[in-house]
């Protein structure tokens, strides 16, 4: 639906007026997804909200929640002779314990940016003597394309293509947050694109088990304003439900075809999250039939001594315990040019969004 600038402004006013009326007590709402965080800052939404409505970012940036052990492993592979690393661009700058993929690239490692997991297959075909390792990072949204790529690699009989999987599932992390009383979240804006794959069912526990209202929300500024409005309506009426604001994209049953591909190739497994540690059942590992594509199984390599950057509080940012300006590094020795932690590196990171769009750095009024 395309609205004119005039209509957009009018609709925005309708929701912000509504939100202001309904905000009769302080509430803390978490936008779980990094894409939401960026959209909120890009549209300047925080300033349109009354002081009683606080937005806090959650663990929904896949690059940010990827722990340093993973990066250190990827870097170790990039130094392995005869290896080509393929990755989405935003992983390049994330610092591991000692180095980053970008620093390794500048020193000669063969690291190539791809726009789709499938691009890695052409690279593998063109370089038969080399091992091509795709850094498979992302949530429910990107995992199906990685799975489809593995099915393709299998069909094409490629023996030099591997994935280093750090895929993660959103609901187990939400559960971890809800189980942390210190976070105090009154309502959740849930990511529309992961729900588009998984459907609504995996998110029902938020309202059902924990009694916290949740709205699956789209990514336009108006979607987000409406999502916040819907949460406030629920809070005002003392309800706790899972609602779907993004019905034009998210179906109750999700996308069964994508889930089929996923289930063929991957199975849930425990995995580590930055800030949370290991969360049971929150990761995806290759099923036995496809394990030969697992870089760590096929080309074993051990990395020891991973550690978090000194002073960085990404872990607390990702759990919604603090907002980025509360980190003493923010904007001082941690900026997008000289990032200390992953949340300042990733384009979807909360620290990067706070910094880039000026909150905590300038006053708009």
């Amino acid at each position: 639906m395309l609205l004119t600038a005039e209509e957009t402004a009018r609709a925005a006013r309708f929701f912000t007026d509504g939100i202001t009326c309904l905000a009769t007590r302080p509430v803390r709402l978490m936008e779980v997804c990094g894409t939401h965080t960026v959209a909120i800052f890009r549209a300047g939404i925080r300033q349109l909200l009354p002081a009683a409505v606080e937005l806090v970012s959650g663990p929904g940036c896949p690059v940010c929640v990827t722990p340093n052990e993973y990066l250190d492993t990827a870097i170790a592979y990039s130094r392995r002779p005869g290896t080509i690393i393929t990755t989405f661009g935003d992983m390049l700058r994330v610092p591991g314990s000692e180095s980053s993929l970008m620093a390794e690239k500048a020193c000669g490692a063969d690291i190539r940016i791809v726009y789709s997991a499938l691009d890695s297959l052409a690279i593998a075909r063109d370089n038969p003597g080399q091992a091509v390792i795709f850094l498979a990072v992302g949530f429910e949204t990107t995992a199906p394309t990685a799975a489809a790529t593995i099915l393709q690699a299998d069909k094409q009989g490629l023996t030099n293509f591997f994935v280093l999987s750090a895929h993660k599932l959103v609901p187990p992390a939400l559960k971890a947050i809800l189980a942390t009383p210190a976070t105090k979240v009154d309502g959740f804006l849930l990511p529309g694109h992961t729900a588009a794959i998984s459907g609504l069912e995996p998110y029902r526990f938020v309202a059902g088990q924990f009694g916290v209202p949740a709205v699956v929300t789209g990514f336009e500024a108006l979607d987000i304003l409406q999502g916040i409005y819907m949460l406030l309506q629920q809070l005002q009426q003392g309800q706790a439900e899972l609602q779907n604001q993004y019905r034009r994209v998210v179906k109750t049953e999700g996308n069964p075809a994508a889930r089929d591909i996923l289930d063929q190739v991957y199975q849930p497994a425990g995995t580590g999250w930055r800030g949370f540690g290991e969360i049971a059942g929150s990761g995806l590992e290759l099923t036995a039939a496809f394990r030969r594509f697992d870089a760590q199984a096929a080309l074993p390599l051990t990395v020891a001594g991973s550690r978090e950057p000194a002073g960085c509080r990404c872990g607390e940012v990702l759990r919604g315990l603090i907002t980025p300006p509360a980190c003493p590094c923010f904007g001082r020795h941690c900026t997008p040019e000289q990032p200390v932690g992953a949340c300042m590196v990733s384009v979807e990171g909360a620290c990067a969004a706070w910094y880039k769009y000026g909150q905590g750095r300038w006053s708009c009024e």
Partner: protein
Amino acid sequence: MNNREKRILLGHGSGGRLSHELIRNIMLPAFANPALSELHDGARLDVGGTRLAFTTDSYVVKPRFFPGGNIGKLAVCGTVNDLAMCGAQAAYLSAGFILEEGLLLSELTLIVESMRQMAVAAGVTIVTGDTKVVEKGAVDGIYINTAGIGVLLPGVNIGAPGVKPGQDIIVSGYLGDHAVAVMSERHGLTLPAAIASDCAPLNQLVAAVLTAVPQVAMLRDPTRGGLATTLNEIAAEAGVGMILEENTLPVRPEVQAVCELLGFDPLYLANEGKVVFIVEKEYSGKVLTILRQNPLAAAARVIGSVTAQPAGQVALRTTVGGLRLLDMLSGEQLPRIC
């Protein structure tokens, strides 16, 4: 190899914050002088009583041919435009070629022919040059350096000190066409026919405006780093703020769509045929009328105004009414786009 020592990264060539740090920390301290320190697109010089502008630029674009142009067309237009942005009419150009062993002569001929055509269109003469051939692999096909010299238009004084709160910010047309044309060629995307590079010599357009309205305070072509970075540079140099209105920014829907696909922001994309004017409100109607008569600037419009706050920074009022910072490009959004 020591991986912790700082090295040149692709982002240092992006035209964004890293490029600025490189220039400020390494180039300026070494070469400091008043003409260079203006950090304009070219140096403004007085040679025997004649006010000249002098500039140079190197072109390393990949791919060499893209919808709407090629590296040769860019090399001539880019330098002609850098002179125009100083308020000068380009007169003479030099052309230096670094050619890779194995480059097809037919390709070189096409590139040189479009340089000739652009020189004719811009009314400049290429009067000196240089050719070097390096071993296969030492460069990517062909790199071109052009330098240019021109005469400053009388009564015109383009520079940051003239930029004051209350002035209008005008852009001459759609943003991001060049970068999207180059990128689509690089990534093998099929584009709607509407999107070709906007690469064009802007000297006649600019001269027409400056002749009628010599009061224009500032001119800049938003090339590397795009509109956002260009305006940030001006705001920082002039110590003023700027507020842009998102719903007035001219971006083609097709460009927006490609940007969404590739995760780019059109406000940071390179343009090669657009110019930003900053002028007192009372003159902006006249500037717009002149611009819109020229096919290169038919979509010209006011996109915002110079303000006192946020000093040194640029803000954007979004379509839903929020206000946010529009920062300089940080890191590389598009390595080596132009």
